[in-house]
């Protein structure tokens, strides 16, 4: 019996039926099909979060100049306060609200009599204290149920205070995971923010999409891009701002790092403003190099291309000795990796380049295209996905502009440039790897025992479970408060951290000596 069967066979028939579609072992050359983006099973300890977590927690959360009022009881706002490492830096022109947590702290009376009045009052107080350029409202479970019309409140406030006020109905119960929240956030930003600015386009300008500046990743990526000569219009949304995002429509090109959370905006920007998008991966040396070369190929300016190669050579040189050392420390190790909806894929090649093979992988909330590539699109809708609004945008004649002609785009695509293209996890995962969609505590434990990876990458809820079973465990959501891991320097940081993790001396001290052989006592100088 193979490992997959050994695990799935422990399920009751009903669970087995569900989970067998989500757990597959990669077969070389075959078509590997996986079920994804379906409901988590009640009682099964999924690692998933909710719609609110995807919308407020992930996508809009990093917008630093926005007062983000969570409309609901206190918990949801509290848990999203300072817990995701989307770093941001204010300056004289940018108020930084990310160190703050705003909530309407709904009480029983608000639930009974409705919370709109309190929300209005909260907005008023926020305006009076902080005078922000933009307020966003995120609703939590009870708000939708009691029927508070947060969009009407937002519209009224926008008029009353002459600032931007955007509401997101991201109640936790919507959809099947964070993923619904990403979509809702994408829609809201597209409808209310992007394109509302009046900046003029600048040359070689780029939006970086789906980069949340965890541990400063975005800063490191932007450093390299700027070094080559690109102008960053906006980053969505790491260290991002309402002020910049308004003008995102003016960029020449969109780079998509996290496909799952932001592909909606990428697509809509293409439709509405004509901006092409490229899937990039700034994690791992090969990915970075390929991505930078793709971007250069898109712009096709010899100076940019030359600078790209020069920067690559220089940055690579700087970390070369370190990477060789860490590779020597990590060679032939195996890893398990379970992250949200894109990151698992991003790290596979970085690990491979360090000699670490991923033998167990999966996503928390990915869709089938994140595994199998965008070629499987469009996906069949189910009852749950239908509940998440899908908006349609049309060309904005005033602001629509294209960098290349349609023909040129076609040529570039034919030349292999990943314009509007993403091949998913399958593109890089090794043969025989075990894949678990919406992985849960039970499977984690079971596969750990069977496959015995040398290191485990996931989140805080697993971290100590895994560590307690003797396997070094690193958080790949928060980088265990290290980072950046993106870019050349980030790869070195990652390699260092992984090396430290697998060489933590205390692992060799887990076994008490009285549990094994009796050991000798010290120097028996006087004991004849």
């Amino acid at each position, binding site marked *: 019996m193979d490992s997959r069967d050994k695990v799935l066979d422990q399920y009751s028939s009903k669970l087995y039926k569900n989970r067998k579609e989500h757990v597959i072992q990669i077969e070389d050359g075959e078509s590997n099909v996986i079920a994804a983006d379906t409901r988590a099973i009640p009682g099964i300890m999924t*690692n998933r979060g909710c719609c609110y977590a995807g919308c407020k927690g992930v996508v809009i959360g990093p917008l630093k100049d926005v007062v983000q009022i969570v409309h609901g009881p206190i918990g949801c706002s509290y848990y999203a306060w300072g817990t995701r490492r989307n770093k941001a830096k204010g300056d004289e022109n940018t108020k930084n609200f990310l160190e703050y947590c705003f909530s309407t702290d709904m009480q029983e009376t608000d639930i009974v009599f409705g919370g709109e009045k309190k929300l209005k009052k909260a907005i008023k107080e926020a305006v009076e204290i902080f005078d922000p350029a933009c307020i966003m409202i995120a609703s939590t479970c009870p708000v939708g149920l009691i029927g508070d019309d947060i969009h009407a409140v937002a519209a009224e406030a926008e008029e009353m205070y002459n600032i931007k006020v955007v509401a997101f109905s991201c109640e936790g119960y919507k*959809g099947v995971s964070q993923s619904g929240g990403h979509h809702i956030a994408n829609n809201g930003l597209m409808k209310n923010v992007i394109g509302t600015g009046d900046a003029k386009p600048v040359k070689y300008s780029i939006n970086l999409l789906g980069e949340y500046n965890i541990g400063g990743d975005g800063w490191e990526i932007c450093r390299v891009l700027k070094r080559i000569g690109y102008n960053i219009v906006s980053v969505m949304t790491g260290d991002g701002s309402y002020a910049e995002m308004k003008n995102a429509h003016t960029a020449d090109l969109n780079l998509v790092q996290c496909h799952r959370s932001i592909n909606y905006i990428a697509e809509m920007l293409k439709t509405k403003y004509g901006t092409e998008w490229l899937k990039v991966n700034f994690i791992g040396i090969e990915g970075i190099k390929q991505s930078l070369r793709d971007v250069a190929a898109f712009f096709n300016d010899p100076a940019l291309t030359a600078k790209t190669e020069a920067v690559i050579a220089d940055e690579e040189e700087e970390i070369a000795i370190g990477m060789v050392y860490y590779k020597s420390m990590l060679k032939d190790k195996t890893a398990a990796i379970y992250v949200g909806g894109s990151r698992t894929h991003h790290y596979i090649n970085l690990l491979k380049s360090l000699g670490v093979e991923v033998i167990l992988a999966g996503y928390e909330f990915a869709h089938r295209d994140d595994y199998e590539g965008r070629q499987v699109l469009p996906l069949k809708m189910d009852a749950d996905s239908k509940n998440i609004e899908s908006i349609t945008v049309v060309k904005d004649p005033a602001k629509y502009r294209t960098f290349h002609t349609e023909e040129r785009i076609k040529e570039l695509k034919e030349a292999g440039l990943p314009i509007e293209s993403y091949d998913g996890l399958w593109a890089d995962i090794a043969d025989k790897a075990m894949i678990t969609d919406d992985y849960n505590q039970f499977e984690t434990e079971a596969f750990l025992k069977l496959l015995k990876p040398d290191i485990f990458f996931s989140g805080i809820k697993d971290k100590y479970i895994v560590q307690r079973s003797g396997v070094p465990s690193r958080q790949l959501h928060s980088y265990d408060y290290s980072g950046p891991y993106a870019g050349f320097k980030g790869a070195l940081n990652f390699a260092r951290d992984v090396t430290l993790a697998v060489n933590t001396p205390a692992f060799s001290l887990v076994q008490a000596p009285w549990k094994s052989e009796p050991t000798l006592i010290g120097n028996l100088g006087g004991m004849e």
Partner: protein
Amino acid sequence: MLDVTPKEISERSALRINPLKTCQPVGAMYAALGVHNCMPHSHGSQGCCSYHRMFLTRHFKDPAIAASSSFTEGASVFGGGSNLKTAIKNIFDLYEPDIIAVHTTCLSETIGDDLVTYITDAKIPEGKIVVHANTPSYVGSHITGFSSMITGLIHYLSVNTGEKNGKLALFPGFVNPGDMREMKKLMTLMGVKYTMLPDTSGVMDSPMTGEYTMYPKGGTTIDDIKDLGNCELSLALGEITSTPPAESLKTKCKVPFATLPLPIGIELTDQYIMALNRFSKNEVPYIIEEERGQLVDILLDSHKYSQNKTVAIYGDPDTVLALAQFTLEMGMIPKYLVTGTPGKTFEAKANELFEKFGVEGCTAKGNADLFELHQWIKNDSVDLMIGGTHGKYVAKAEDIPLVRAGFPIVDRYVHSYLPLVGYKGAMRLAEMILNALMDRQDRDCADEDMEMIM
């Protein structure tokens, strides 16, 4: 740091900024983790469960297990009964706990899910137990939720069989496993037979063994919870947190109760010891007397470094009140005491304390937040802050030393293993407070004022 916080304080009645509380369910989850072989269960959207597990895991650096009913939009409209039923089956099948402790969420409460009926109707395997507590997130705080789950456990399980068991029922309050260990140590030294509920020691501070076990050795056993109904007396530590369960045990099983503040510092630990002494009629052993005397000695030796120093203490109500009393015993002035948990008792108790020690210019506020505390500090600063991690931004912004104590501490290690309660805990606390103040003196002094001897 916190650059947009204005010094000028404005009245707020709707906008909560930088809260000092979170919602009931996470407190209920923590309480349930203090029951042996128990799976906490969150009846609501899976996001709640995920957030709560993260919160607890980050504080304890140990796995916090819990399952969720994983509501979808459908369940939210039509009720979560079916989800709970499925969850109960799956949990018992897969994770094999002896008991599932369900708590509700704002979602299931808003739609009015009837947990009693759901649980009655559920298929529960022979010998297994499901209990629940109503913990709507829009009422009270995590402290309330902690209380509610203990009450729920008592409600479902405790029975007065008519035969007294000679034990003390101890409700430890919302404290760390290290505190619970110290409370138990003192009961043992005083010869008190007891049941403590909950008891997260051995669960949330369990040792590394090389093997993961979902249910570690610790936690109050189901039999002991049942037997609570036969206790002679219950002692509720932390009046705001622990009175409700003590009352419910009295109501259900006629067990009389006494309430005391959390035993932090000298006098409050004295009260705890005296209560144990009354209960067991055993003399206080020398080891306790010695620890007490050592603590007094330390406070006398070091008084110059603490006396008249002002401190802001924030966090959970019983913790803040007990910490405040200890700082007063150290001669400090607890200038600002704030908690996010609503309720009038906190301010009343704090004001009693100010009066008792004759300190002036001190303010206590319940249902308050860190933003307001920060504004107070901007207007009139303090020498020290004591509280959880969330105060670190204020501490950095205003360059005030911070002693981490209470919940949550998500940016440091070891805290959950070692006590703040009891004389030993107070020694540790005194060391932390003194080091913070003295390190600051060393940092800030001119070279010529650096003292070798202090």
